């Protein structure tokens, strides 16, 4: 079982590398990628500078695995990769990378969408929004 969590921000080069790794898989016709990026939200006049992610890691890796299993049984995808940050990720940096591949475009797009929704709602990851003045608030997914 491949680890999902990475320490800190996900570098853009990881995306190029992941795509390049699939060029030998010539049954793939479509890749669908979702990237989460940290927004400089303004709350009561204070601007978010970073999010510090923590997780119930053992449970999270188990849930990621269950989501993968469900996705592979629902969608005819050839591969799926998920990466999520732990620790501090600054505004403008990437905190999540979901990457699915399939012979056909609709399947890849639907599968990525499924992963993103499932991850947001089911994985015990917690986010502390750190403002520029070093105060914080806890992020809640909508």
């Amino acid at each position, binding site marked *: 079982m491949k680890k999902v969590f990475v320490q800190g921000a996900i570098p853009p080069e990881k995306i190029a590398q992941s795509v390049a790794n699939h060029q030998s898989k010539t049954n793939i016709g479509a890749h669908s990628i979702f990237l*989460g990026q940290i927004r400089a939200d303004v709350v009561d006049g204070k601007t978010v500078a970073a*999010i510090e*992610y*923590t*997780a*119930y890691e*053992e*449970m*999270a890796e*188990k849930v990621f695995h269950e989501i993968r299993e469900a996705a592979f049984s629902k969608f005819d995808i050839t591969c799926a990769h998920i990466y*999520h940050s732990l620790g501090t990720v600054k505004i403008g940096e990437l*905190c*999540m990378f979901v990457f699915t591949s399939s012979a056909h475009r609709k399947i890849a797009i639907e599968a990525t969408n499924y992963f*993103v929704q499932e*991850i*947001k*709602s*089911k*994985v*015990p*990851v*917690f*986010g*502390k929004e750190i403002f520029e003045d070093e105060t914080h608030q*806890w*992020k*809640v*997914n909508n």
Partner: protein
Amino acid sequence: MKVTIKYFGLVAEAAGKNEEVFNFEGTLTSGELKNKCLDQLSILDRDSVQVAVNQNLDDTIEIKEGDEVALLPPFAGG
């Protein structure tokens, strides 16, 4: 019975610690245990806190010795 309870995110912040050993007599469901823990903490939206027993969300199961119990504030992944 002794159970170790893991705290995360704003629950850990409110508790000032990441885990705690909880002692109780008789039987408790996971939901009842969650409420006993939260009674000690100042958390406004108690309904937003979920309880996991052995890494499964469940607020109705009866707690057994050795269970891994965790209190989970709202998820913010992605």
